[in-house]
């Protein structure tokens, strides 16, 4: 098994004819993902990277049985694209698009929730299970099949860390990038139980950052629902209060969202917290070794 995506995942790329849509369709296919369809209104009947393009998600689902979508459409139209996916029966949507207003995300999230559909993102690198499928934009080169699950609020920092795991001779079960926006469809709290249940995952790496209370909430979840070892890292220890550090959600506001608070909560919940990102692979290896000797 794996988390959320597997070899049976059939992906429709929403906004496939745009530059990003096309580039990443190619990369997803190279990864081995079954990209079965793309959509762009008015471009139905064409092809991109050998993938048939439809005018609507409903047509794409009808013709190809797509069950997951990867959304690249511009921010002002992202809400609409997701509603279309939900109404067409798509159960998992990775939203790569950045700068979606959070008021839009609120209605997207709650609509999806009421209809049994799940968002990863927005403004996220997506999800990948090496050897099975990738939905999103994480570079293919960083992966190698293995038993480390990675959950991260970051993009490139995740690549750095996942790549480090590979270079250390280890590999990943599933890696999911949640995105750094204030409102995200899938949080640590949502994702941790998936990895806890996943028989392919032995150790969980959690990459957080300043802003909000997602890591504090994650610490609660680790305490109550996770038995597997967790290695964590929190970016932004040197960030000053009141400044948005690149991500819309990465801000220490009114004393909330500091790295200290997050690190303390994670430590108290039993996670091993790395000071430097490059320490993570070694910490993971130690945990794996400890599991072997159990």
């Amino acid at each position: 098994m794996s988390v959320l995506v597997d070899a049976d995942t059939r992906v429709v790329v929403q906004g496939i004819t745009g530059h990003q849509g096309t580039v990443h369709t190619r990369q997803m296919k190279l990864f081995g993902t079954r990209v079965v369809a793309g959509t762009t209104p008015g471009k139905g009947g064409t092809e991109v990277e050998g993938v048939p393009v439809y005018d609507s998600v409903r047509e794409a689902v009808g013709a190809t049985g797509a069950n997951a979508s990867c959304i690249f459409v511009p921010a002002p139209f992202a809400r609409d694209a997701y509603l279309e996916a939900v109404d067409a029966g798509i159960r998992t949507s990775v939203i790569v698009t950045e700068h979606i207003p959070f008021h839009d995300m609120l209605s997207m999230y709650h609509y999806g929730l009421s209809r049994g559909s799940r968002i990863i993102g927005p403004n996220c690198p997506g999800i990948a299970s090496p050897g099975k499928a990738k939905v999103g934009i994480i570079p293919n080169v960083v992966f190698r099949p293995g038993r480390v699950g990675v959950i991260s609020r970051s993009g490139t920092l995740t690549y750095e860390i996942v790549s480090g795991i590979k270079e250390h001779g280890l590999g990943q079960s599933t890696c999911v990038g949640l995105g750094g926006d204030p409102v995200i469809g899938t949080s640590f709290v949502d994702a941790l139980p998936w990895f806890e249940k996943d028989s392919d995952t032995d150790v969980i790496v959690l990459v957080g950052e300043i802003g909000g209370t997602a890591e504090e909430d994650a610490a609660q979840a680790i305490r109550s629902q996770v038995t597997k070892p967790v290695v964590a890292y929190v970016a932004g220890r040197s960030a000053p209060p009141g400044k948005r550090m690149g991500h819309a959600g990465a801000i220490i506001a009114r004393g909330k969202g500091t790295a200290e608070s997050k690190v303390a909560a994670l430590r108290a919940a039993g996670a091993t917290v790395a000071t430097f990102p490059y320490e993570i692979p070694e910490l993971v290896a130690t945990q794996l070794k400890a599991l072997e000797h159990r």
Partner: protein
Amino acid sequence: MVKLAEWMGKGIFRKHGIPTPVGVVVRSAEEAEAATRTGRVPLPCVVKAQVLAGGRGKGGAVQFANTPAEAALATRSILALEFKGEKVREVLLEQKVSILREFYLSFALDRSLRMPILMASAQGGVEVESVPEEAILRIPIHPFVGLAGYERRQVIRLFGLSGPAAKSLDDLLDRAWGVFQSEDAELVEINPLGLVGSGVIALDAKVVIEDDAAFRHPEYSEVRDDRTPLEEIAREKGIAFVQLDGNIGVIANGAGLTMATLDVLAEFGGRPGVFLDLGGTDDPGKVTEAFLLMAKAMPRAVFLNIFGGVTRCDTVATGLVEAMKQVPASERFPLVARIRGNNEAEGVAILKSAGVTSLSDLKESVQATVRAAEVPVEAPRGTVA
């Protein structure tokens, strides 16, 4: 974050039917004199600096006036202030109202619940952070049904109001929720909310519009924010750029990687001065612009840390090489580079041809950067120009 000044926030409140004191914004002592003399602002009045920072009461940024002459005087003295580093450009004159009680109200986002949240406290007029948690009522608002009447009654009960005052608060809550939604706000704060006679009135207004929703609100495009001039230029160019207290600049791609790089720098004794996140781009021109912007911030050293994904290594290298040609001699800085990921080989080769060596170890790179910032005499290997 589009933080609106008090007078703009109150303008929005009035548009939505939320009561505010009679007031006029002025930019000179003469205007203040005229506004009070003609009765546009009835006397006595309050004279308030229009700055974004809080705590104005203690810093002389709020004064009172009983005559037009006093209003002019107060305005002049406030316009001369620099309040918490911010030059005062506008002053709000408002009729002084007789306040029976002061409350706190705000609408913000609860990220964990993915719902807006109403916070209310019967202790108004002070920073909400100083109010004990148990004295704050928090009501999550489901976006599909909005602020319900039974939820508004909870606030009315907390404030102990009844009769016309309760009705007035009920109405105001509904309208303030309307502001939060229809203006795409990330914060609507009324502190204090005043009880005046038998009704409530917004005595202050803090409205922050979400940046990402700016495309729906062209009316706020001219709003001055508390960004530095360089941050403002960066924002226009779509580059995430934050000025910090130190002297080392970091250019990376992705917010998490940029933050992590700054953290490592700080850990090894460096002082982070600029956070520059290239974001996802495949335009070398944007990379060049980012470097030119970084040069303007006059860092003592810059560390370029790229993991190529959407942003490919060769794009960054090409943009950097172009920047090396354009940066004026007076703005040159020592550079340490580390580029990995998509098209790494191409990127490294381009850098090499321009005389820049890409290091691969993060710790070593950071240590080299810190040393470069400490030794400004001669630029080390891997220097821009």
